[in-house]
């Protein structure tokens, strides 16, 4: 048994185990999502996070120890966020003649999405960290986590909130659009991309290419607008 204990001490200390576990959890989660035919509810990020979080809790491993290894994956999030400019530029060129109407819709819709989340949370007496974690809810996860950190929210909580919002928007959003009588594929794409970021965009792409392009554009513009403006407005209002 002493051998096992030694191996455990080694694994808990070295970054290799956490890094391997992260990649394996991701492979398992994408396998599951593929089997569920990429249904929004089988979101691979959500499944991988639940697998790893459950593993940490079950084995009594501290998050800090896990992150010491997983940070090598986490580091690539920065350049990947910058890389979002490339598809945004592609969509902007593809839908150029409607780009201004699209930008106006995204600006209003994105502000409303942020305010609705903040309003509901404050109205129901949520803690300040919860409110700050909810504010960037409708923006793509990497950007939302950065914004949450900048305004005093909790990036881990924000990631879970953003993914759940994306799943809700992708799974139920089309029903809402039918209900309010929006049939234009461009408008449907803009609505889903603004409120449900990448998860909604993946869904929109699978339904209609025009809706997908507009959804991708909305996701990029909302990420840019929210990330540039929300922290500044937050500082003005909260005085922090």
């Amino acid at each position, binding site marked *: 048994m002493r051998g096992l204990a030694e191996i455990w001490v080694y694994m808990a200390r070295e970054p290799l185990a956490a890094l391997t576990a992260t990649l394996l959890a991701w492979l398992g989660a994408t396998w599951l999502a593929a089997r569920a035919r990429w249904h929004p509810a089988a979101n691979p990020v959500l499944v991988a996070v639940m697998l790893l979080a459950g593993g940490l809790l079950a084995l009594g491993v501290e998050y800090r120890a896990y992150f010491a290894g997983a940070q090598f994956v986490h580091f690539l999030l920065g350049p990947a966020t910058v890389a979002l400019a490339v598809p945004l530029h592609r969509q902007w060129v593809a839908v150029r003649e409607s780009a201004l109407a699209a930008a106006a819709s*995204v600006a209003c819709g994105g502000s409303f*999405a942020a305010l*609705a989340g903040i309003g509901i949370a404050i109205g129901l007496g949520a803690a300040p960290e919860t409110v700050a974690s909810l504010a960037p809810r409708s923006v793509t996860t990497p950007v939302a986590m950065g914004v949450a950190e900048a305004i005093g929210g909790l990036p881990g909580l924000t990631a879970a909130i953003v993914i759940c919002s994306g799943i809700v928007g992708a799974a139920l959003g089309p029903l809402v659009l039918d209900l309010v009588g929006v049939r*234009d594929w461009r408008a449907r794409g803009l*609505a889903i991309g603004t409120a449900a970021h990448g998860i909604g965009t993946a869904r929109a792409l699978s339904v209609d290419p025009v809706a997908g392009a507009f959804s991708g554009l909305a996701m990029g513009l909302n990420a840019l607008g929210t990330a*540039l403006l929300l922290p500044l407005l937050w500082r003005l209002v909260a005085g922090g």
Partner: protein
Amino acid sequence: MIGGLATLLSCQLAGEAIARLLGLPVPGPVLGMALLFAALLLRGRAAPEGLARTADALLGVLGLLFVPAGVGVVLHLPLIARDWAPLALAVLAGTLLAVGLTGRLAAWLLARRGG
């Protein structure tokens, strides 16, 4: 591939530097994204192939990249237990209201432009 990665990291570095110099509470990578988008608009052509390939490769596994931070949710379980009602309502109602409102507004704006 390396050229593309160098471009992305340079933009991120410039974004971090600007955010710190001006004391902006905006995440550095997002400023980097804005810089790159502006540069691509100024260029007026498609992104260089190396950059496009690197960007697509990174974005193809974007989900994996935010798993480590997402696992940080284990640190906030007591907060989630306390605030589960506002969280659930904000996620559900907030998102669906935003979908409906944005959809109606976009349909109206696009129709007005006659396109």
